[in-house]
């Protein structure tokens, strides 16, 4: 009888840590000496995905750079809840300038470090989806195009949550926001709008582009590490559920991020110099309704009479992602 030898560690590749893993295989987050780049006492909502995503990404970047890191932050939730005078939650050098200029400010910091001969100090720019795909898009594209030595991280919670949940160009179709109400024949955000920023980033031909979610820490940390192995412009798009804006339970934050990936709603992949080089396969396929039903922003699609036609369109979008990126595992993958 054939026996398969599997490098198997109970929860090795999914949980944060595990006593059975060697130190090198554990996540940064499992380390008691992790930086906690954004520390306790911040004022984010209960279960905030963005606070979590920021700590994951920056702690990983801190480890890779041995603490030689500067962060530039756009205006938004992350900035407001982390630095209300007189308290800051940041444990790393951190600069906030404006809503739409974080990529450019990051460029300036990187330029200063280079001119000062402090090349070892790496720069991360970060913003929510509004600061990235909308108001910060011009400066972001400029930073990409010049290939400035900045890792820019978008924490995508699909709307302007800081100002009270308004629509952004990252808001998905059919989602209710304060400016795309669930009324009329096409309730919620219209179909056919919005930007796919990771692909736009890839079109710039920059060294590294990746998407990730707060539900897959190993994947996220690996991508931060990979990103830091390049010089030049890099882009990481992290999917971070927002309990407030999405009308979801605060304990469902990671669950939702996982479902977004498993349904194909949010494709998780990475690309180098404009070409997709890796795809994180779906492990337990699920219909989009599993994901949608947990969020009040989609409540108008369910119940009676509900909008099965709209749900079908969302499913079709997920299916298109699955087809485009080849998200379903094949025999070979297993």
């Amino acid at each position: 009888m054939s026996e398969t030898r599997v490098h198997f560690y109970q929860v090795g590749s999914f949980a944060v840590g595990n006593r059975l893993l060697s130190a090198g295989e554990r996540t940064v987050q499992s380390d008691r000496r992790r930086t906690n780049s954004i520390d306790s006492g911040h004022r984010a909502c209960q279960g905030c995905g963005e606070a979590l995503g920021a700590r994951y990404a920056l702690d990983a970047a801190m480890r890779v750079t041995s603490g030689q890191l500067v962060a530039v932050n756009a205006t938004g939730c992350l900035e407001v809840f982390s630095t209300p005078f007189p308290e800051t939650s940041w444990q790393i050098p951190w600069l906030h300038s404006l809503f739409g200029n974080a990529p450019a400010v990051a460029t300036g910091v990187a330029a200063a470090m280079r001119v000062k001969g402090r090349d070892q100090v790496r720069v991360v720019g970060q913003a929510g989806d509004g600061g990235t795909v909308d108001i910060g898009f011009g400066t972001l594209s400029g930073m990409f195009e010049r290939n400035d030595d900045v890792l820019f991280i978008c924490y995508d919670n699909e709307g302007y949550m800081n100002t009270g949940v308004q629509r952004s160009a990252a808001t998905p179709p059919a989602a209710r926001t304060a400016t795309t109400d669930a009324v009329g024949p096409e309730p919620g955000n219209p179909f056919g709008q919005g930007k796919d920023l990771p692909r736009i980033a890839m079109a710039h031909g920059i060294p590294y582009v990746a998407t990730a979610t707060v539900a897959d820490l190993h994947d996220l940390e690996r991508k931060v590490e990979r990103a830091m192995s390049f010089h030049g412009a890099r882009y990481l798009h992290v999917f971070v559920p927002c309990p407030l804006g999405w009308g979801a339970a605060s304990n469902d934050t990671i669950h939702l991020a996982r479902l977004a990936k498993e349904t194909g709603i949010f494709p998780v992949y990475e690309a180098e110099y404009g070409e997709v080089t890796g795809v994180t396969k779906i492990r337990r396929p699920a219909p989009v309704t599993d994901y949608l039903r947990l969020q009040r922003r989609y409540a108008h699609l369910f119940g009676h009479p509900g909008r099965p036609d709209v749900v079908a369109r969302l499913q079709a979008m997920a299916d298109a992602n699955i087809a485009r990126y080849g998200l379903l595992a094949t025999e070979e993958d297993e």
Partner: protein
Amino acid sequence: MLQQIEGSHAIAESVARCRPEVVCAYPISPQTHIIEAIGAMVKEGTLAPCEFINVESEFAAMSVSIGASAAGARAYTATASQGLLFMIEAVYNAAGLGLPIVMTLANRAIGAPINIWNDHSDAMAVRDSGWIQLFAETNQEAADLHVQAFRLAEDLSVPVMVCMDGFILTHAVEGVDLLDQEQVDRFLPPYEPRQVLDPEDPASIGAMVGPEAFEEVRYLAHLRQLDALDRIPEIAAEFAEMFGRDSGGLVRPYRLADADTVIVAMGSVLGTIKDAVDERREAGERIGVLGITSFRPFPLEAVRQALGARERVIVVEKAFSLGMGGVLATDVAMAIGTTTLHTVVAGLGGRPITRVALLDMVDRARAGALEPLSFLDLDEGVIARERARMATVRRSGPFAENVLRDLGRPREDQA
């Protein structure tokens, strides 16, 4: 070394000798020659170390400067007009963060109607931003002011804007005695930031400040501007002592002794005004000039002392506040109190300010015929016709185009 040189190039040379470490460039007339020249110096390696960054907008130019300055680099950029307005959010931000960026503003009008020629509307638009604004009368002064500006900015941790009239100065080729590198190095020490992004000493810069402290933050910024009122003349004096040349300072009095009439102005027009005043002085008229070099901070005391109790003060300014009147004049009025004060708006959008017109202005003032707010060389006819048209035609269209049409008509059609 004295040389015949275009204003823009003189500025570029002067800035380069200040050893800027990050220079952001985005083209807009009439400042483009400055950054072109600096770009070439970086490219050929004569200015090093320096990061020259071709950004995608003025907003990015100021933003990159913010990042660079916060990370401890000496940052410089230049802009004008619409460019300044496009970066205005970042302009305020740089001041709010107390970052000693130096920027050349090649003063130019603001559209619509689009206009590339000189006036001071752009500078006035950021008057309250927290930047120090120094106005140069000549290219020599502009070149010297940049050296002083870095010193001042870094002393106080406040950004400084050196304003020079677009085209009139930037594109004028005239003699400028540029400081050499050794001289600049003697005058301007390396940049030591008051705060810096540093992994060895992390801090959060740019916190959100609520009602509990915002007023104090603002007041402190104001106090820094008041400190500048002391530092600006000190630095100018030091400069004069080191290089034997008067440049900068707060105000620039000219033939004020016993003058009953004083013309107040900023920028390149002062030269023309001085010529006019000389002419009248020769005719025995008691007339003088007060040039304002430091517009922000505004030297209330210096202006008060310079103007004293004059019979009349005429403020000639290249900008005004629509619906109100003179901008500089308002500040001057604040300084001198009850003295009769006239505002004359002149040279908007590049219109030449002539000596004849200036003298006519003075005459009218002496004759009591000068309104508190008047516009030099205003074409009353055009105004009258457009107003009449607007009064009769509901959809009268944009009056900028109408005025152009009006002016373009064959001469015989004009009333």
